[in-house]
């Protein structure tokens, strides 16, 4: 029997962990001589106080949903995919090639094509570490870290070589053709006189991300494959005994993971930049780790955590604009969230379990 009721495991522990991270972040803000309460108000105002702010918050959240889901599905198979960054970079390469070299008649088709291209490129980049883990036992964490660096160099190579606009000094691809541009929230939600989400980068990809959440939920909890992945994650030996092939599960879970990370590129490359630039991912692959940990690897949790991080990102940008608090504060918060919800999980869990045990004893 579980020591704690389910709600405590799913809601209480993450809440306490986030609270701890928030308190420490507030202390950091205090230590550098700013007012944490004022900072929070500024962040809420900047990220949620206007449709413009929401447009940025949801744009960032879309990135983090994809990378968070990528880390989450790998977690279910007890794989730690740190390579989301590299897979998302490669996804961007896929999107750029698809958008630049295929004359798309309409954005709907371009979106479909780019999503497939991004998924294939991302999955391919995850396939090599997955294969090495499954067949040669090379630790997937180390290989995916190495692949992040290799991906960054590869993109660098393409952007100063084959994809660069001739005559331009900037390491970036050409602008995608008009027909491949995705509708932004401004295009979609502005009627008549009122313009909503003016200039914000949020675009239709947000709904693709939401669909991906639902699809992944269905995959994990409503299909045989999802059951096999979870069984493998709980106990490799038991899964083997039940006739589940470890090689297959590692490969499939990592391919899905890489495809999801790669699909982030339809948001940032096709949706926002509308061309491929250097370091397009901007660390979103790593934020996926924090998002997946905080969301307890559940697609719905990932969605909520991605919204929170979208808020933190947009709020942090506003903070950097209006106060002397640099943007890097967000990285500190991100680190604290990873630390408390991931590595120091037992620090919160052990006393809580003791508390629930003694409460149950008192009742009996």
């Amino acid at each position: 029997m579980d020591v704690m009721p389910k709600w405590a495991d799913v809601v209480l522990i993450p809440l306490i962990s986030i609270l701890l991270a928030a308190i420490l972040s507030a202390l950091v803000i205090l230590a550098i001589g700013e007012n944490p309460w004022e900072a929070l108000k500024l962040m809420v105002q900047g990220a949620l106080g206007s449709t413009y702010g929401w447009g940025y918050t949801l744009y960032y959240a879309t990135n983090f949903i994809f990378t968070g889901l990528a880390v989450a599905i790998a977690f279910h198979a007890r794989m730690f995919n740190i390579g989301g960054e590299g897979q998302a970079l490669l996804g961007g390469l896929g999107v750029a090639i698809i958008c630049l070299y295929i004359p798309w008649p309409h954005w709907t088709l371009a979106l479909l094509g780019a999503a497939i291209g991004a998924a294939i490129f991302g999955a391919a980049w995850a396939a090599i570490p997955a294969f090495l883990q499954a067949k040669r036992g090379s630790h997937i964490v180390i290989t995916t870290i190495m692949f992040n660096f290799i991906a960054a160099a590869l993109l660098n190579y393409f952007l100063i070589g084959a994809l660069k606009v001739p005559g331009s000094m900037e390491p970036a691809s050409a602008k995608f053709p008009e027909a491949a541009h995705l509708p932004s929230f401004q295009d979609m939600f502005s009627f008549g006189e009122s313009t909503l989400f003016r200039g914000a980068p949020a675009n239709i990809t947000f709904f693709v991300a939401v669909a991906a959440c639902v699809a992944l939920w269905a995959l994990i909890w409503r299909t045989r494959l999802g059951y096999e992945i979870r069984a493998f994650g709980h106990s490799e030996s038991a899964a083997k005994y039940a006739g589940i092939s470890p090689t297959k599960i590692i490969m499939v879970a990592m391919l899905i993971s890489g495809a999801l990370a790669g699909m982030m590129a339809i948001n940032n490359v096709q949706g926002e930049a509308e061309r491929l630039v250097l370091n397009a991912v901007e660390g979103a692959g790593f934020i996926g780790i924090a998002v997946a940990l905080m969301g307890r690897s559940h697609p719905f949790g990932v969605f909520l955590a991605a919204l929170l991080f979208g808020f933190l990102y947009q709020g942090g940008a506003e903070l950097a604009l209006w106060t002397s608090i640099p943007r890097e504060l967000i990285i500190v918060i991100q680190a604290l969230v990873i630390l408390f919800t991931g590595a120091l999980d037992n620090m919160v869990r052990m006393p809580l379990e003791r508390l629930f045990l003694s409460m149950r004893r008192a009742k009996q």
Partner: protein
Amino acid sequence: MDFATLLQMLDATMRLATPLLLACLAGLYSERAGIFDIGLEGKMLAAAFLSAAIAAVTGNVWVGLLAGIGASISLSVIHGLASITFRGNQLISGVAINFLAAGLTVVVAQSWFRQGGRTPQLTDGGRFEPITLPFAEALRDVPVIGPIYYELISGHTPLVYVAVLMVPLTWWVLYRTRFGLRLRAVGENPAAVDTAGVSVITLRYAAVAICGVLCGIAGAYLATALQAGFVKDMSAGRGFIALAALIFAKWRPWYALYACLLFGFLQAMSLRPDVIENVLNFRVNGQLLDVLPYILTVVILAGFVGKAIPPRAGGEPYVKER
């Protein structure tokens, strides 16, 4: 390529290999004791910042070095708490430490010095100066040996010699002392060590602390010897290259030296594309040189060139039987 250029390249190799070597040996202690550490990068970065900051404020580089080691050790304590005491996931803890350092260094640097997340340029006394070994001047004109001694062996900052001397010291500690035997045992089979009445927790904390000290020296070297001050993200993936070197060396000290020298040489080459072009008569892509350590490590990990087998209990928290 003439002899002088070769010496220059090898000299640069020494300078660039030093932080890799220190971080690599740091990882070696930790991982040999069964604690995976992908937070080498973050510890180096934190040490680089605090050493540069304190050296800039006090004007004394040795105080700076101590502060850097302190910063690195405090991150080690977090890693120890997470992975030893609270039996958390060591890899996730390492990731958190990397981000903590990447964020905090810039936030603190900005509020402290207001120079866009960097520390002031270090001047005399705030930096490690090259030391000239005895007889270097006198032997300078002796053919071949003279220039090698003068250019390559003499004239480095003290920390370079510290790093090189750490290799035999580490070998001796690991393979010739009781502590080293227990350290290796605790990474392979902690239950056996526990049965022998030796505390697994203490041993692992000791290993993590040594790792912190060495990462601290590596970071201080970056900011106070290799360069003159801290800039944002100055560790630039060196912690991960050190990790790669550690796997390349299969967790052995002497091989760690060779791996770090190799990777340092690759870094030196990518700084001098003109030299390679002259020697090989074609251009080698700079990016390729930069990622070669990572590619080589993946190849080694894949087991195509001899298998890299990590310490058996690595990454597993130890739970005492009751």
